[in-house]
């Protein structure tokens, strides 16, 4: 892989990054890792080392911290390709933290950013009800990437309190691997017992908006990449599977549903692109639009993954076929962090306010 982020100059071409990402992930991701009989989670070390070597986490870190100073749009093809490959690893949580840390810009933030640049830090993100960052005693369940993470960015669910960074390698911390139905990813339960967190110099409201929006967009693109791959594989199957003397894909009962799924996917992609542009510029409505983009994207992915099983018939119902890998990831993507209902309720206020202002 030649087009690594580290080697390239000032502005990076997202399509070159996409090519590099697609090649790396095609080469390194064994999508059935984690799905063996013994139930061991996928081993992520080699892939994490590759990604660190390519310098992806440096992309959006400002140059003043030793990063590449790119905007959010350079992460889009990476998130999409990670989704397409059903990768066990994502950089979404670390990069979400990066956007909060660069705004905080205090000594705690700078320390973590430097370690991300060095390739020695990976950050998990969690939300908890109000907490006292001087003495953290709480549990977080089913946190993505927790077992491989070095640090935790902990945000309060209310607007009170502070955002805290927690060293996951320190005393009083226990991280236990958690098995989910989406076995292709690693999750963990984190238990903190009288752990001293380091508060960040950023308002909770701002940190929450940034963290939610970045996570929403990362999830949207992950879902879009995976959805497109699931649809491509289902269509390929329907072109070859013969019944009644012709390919099943020639039946309108199936092809019309495939067409509807394609339209849903293209709508989701269009909104995700717009939302990503808004987020990169922090232009009006950026935080709500990110939530809306995630809603459409996870909905499209779930619909495609569900129908893909049906399109495949009996073979799609087997463990041996990959259909269920997509389905389980789609159902996880829909729920992880926030449910669609929570997102709808979160973005409704902003959408209504802008609609009323424009309609007036």
């Amino acid at each position, binding site marked *: 892989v030649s087009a690594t982020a580290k080697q390239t100059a000032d502005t990076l071409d997202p399509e070159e990054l996409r090519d590099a990402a697609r090649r790396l992930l095609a080469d390194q991701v064994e999508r059935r890792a984690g799905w063996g009989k013994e139930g061991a989670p996928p081993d992520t070390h080699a892939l994490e080392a590759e990604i660190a070597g390519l310098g992806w986490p440096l992309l959006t870190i400002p140059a003043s911290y030793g990063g590449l100073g790119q905007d959010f749009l350079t992460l889009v093809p990476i998130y999409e390709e990670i989704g397409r490959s059903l990768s066990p690893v994502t950089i979404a949580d670390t990069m979400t933290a990066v956007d909060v840390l660069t705004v905080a810009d205090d000594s705690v933030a700078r320390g973590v950013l430097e370690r991300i640049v060095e390739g020695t830090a990976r950050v998990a993100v969690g939300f908890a009800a109000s907490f006292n960052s001087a003495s953290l005693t709480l549990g977080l369940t089913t946190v993505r990437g927790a077992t491989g993470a070095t640090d935790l960015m902990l945000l309060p669910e209310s607007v009170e309190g502070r955002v805290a960074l927690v060293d996951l390698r320190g005393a009083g911390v226990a991280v236990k691997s958690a098995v989910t139905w989406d076995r292709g990813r690693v999750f963990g339960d984190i238990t903190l017992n009288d752990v001293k967190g380091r508060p960040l110099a950023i308002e909770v409201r701002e940190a929450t908006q940034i963290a939610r929006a970045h996570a929403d967009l990362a999830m949207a693109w992950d879902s879009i990449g995976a959805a497109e791959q699931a649809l491509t594989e289902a269509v390929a199957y329907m072109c070859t599977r013969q019944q009644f003397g012709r390919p099943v894909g020639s039946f309108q009962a199936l092809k019309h549903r495939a067409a509807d799924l394609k339209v849903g996917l293209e709508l989701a992609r269009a909104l995700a692109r717009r939302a990503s542009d808004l987020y990169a510029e922090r232009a009006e409505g950026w935080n709500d639009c990110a939530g809306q983009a995630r*809603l459409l994207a996870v909905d499209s992915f779930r619909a495609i993954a569900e129908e893909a099983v049906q399109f495949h018939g009996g073979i799609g119902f087997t463990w041996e076929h990959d259909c269920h890998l997509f389905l389980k990831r789609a159902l996880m993507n829909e729920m992880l962090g926030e449910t669609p209902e929570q997102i709808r309720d979160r973005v409704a206020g902003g959408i209504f306010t802008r*609609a009323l202002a424009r309609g007036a």
Partner: protein
Amino acid sequence: MTDDPKLEMLRSEVRSWLSQNVPANWREQQAGDNIEAFVASQRDWLARLVAAGYATPHWPQGWPGGGRTLAEQVAIFEEIARADAPRMSLFFVSLYHAAMTLLEHGTAAQTSRHLPAILKGEIWCQGFSEPNAGSDLASLKTSAVLKDGRYVVNGQKIWSTLGQFADWCLLLVRTRTSGAKQAGITFLLLDMRSKGVTSRSIRQITGDEEFAELFLDNVEIPVENRVGAENEGWRVAQTTLSSERGLTLVELTERLARSLWRLVGLVTTGGTATERLDDEARRRIVDIASRIEALRAMIATLTARRIAGQEVPGDASIIKLAYARVLRDFSALGLRLRGMAAQRDTDYVLGAGYETGNWMFDFMNSYQWNIAGGSNEIQRNIISERVLMLPRERLA
């Protein structure tokens, strides 16, 4: 996303013209108008647009406001929609379908006769569909036999938009019955005042009469009214069908966004708290708002692709199917949220687009986009076969 300065200047010109020329309170003024009053207001609106050069930006240079790029045409359509100006519905077939067909395939005599007349308000309709040739348009049967320099035409056409008001008709006829069905079709221009032409309005499920049936009984059409060669009408018809180049949906999607704002206003004001929004209704509005926003973003992307000459097969079908579904779901949501108020048969505005504010009317009317211009099922065939490359169905 930002337009270049020239385009921005055009937009501000259009905006300022619209602020002076959109009839004040036209929605209130025209609510409940009958079809004759509607025709009169459309004529007035056309005259204003022609004078300003905004009716024919897509015509060649030399015509009023002609020679505009597609990007400029898009900008004009968007501004007209954003100003909530009346639609150009009565003259759309004249300005786009008829004019663009004649400009590409017509003789000098045909263009010099009709283009100036269209600017003055000559109304055209389309005589394509037949009772037994809807989705399968190429199987049309209306016959034309050439005799002494005149085609003698017999048959029936249906779904001619506002055909009862038309002066002229773009007519597809069969001139050969052997061989491929597409290869025996000829394109004619029919003077609606010809002997043997009867038009009858079709009353739709909305109660409106926006379409006509045409009965053609030994109608004579001079051979100089043929467009293109005999039996090559199918190719000419493709120009007619693609003449508006997606501009309608640019406009209608902007109007749909405005309608959403109007709906949010309606459901958040007045009444008691319980009559206002519950959680489910609020979430459904968020969903439809997201889909409308996605549709706008998708149309912007695909329009940019078209402007750059990089259109991909199936783009137009994806947009049309997406719009049709969102429009139906949006009007269904409005219908539900407005409760009994939407069940009352109140006045509405013809020519306001698919969102008059009368939710029952809008819901009923939304079927138009799901059926006309290639039904959803036809679009799904195109998307599955030309975009997803699924195998073709066996054709009759």
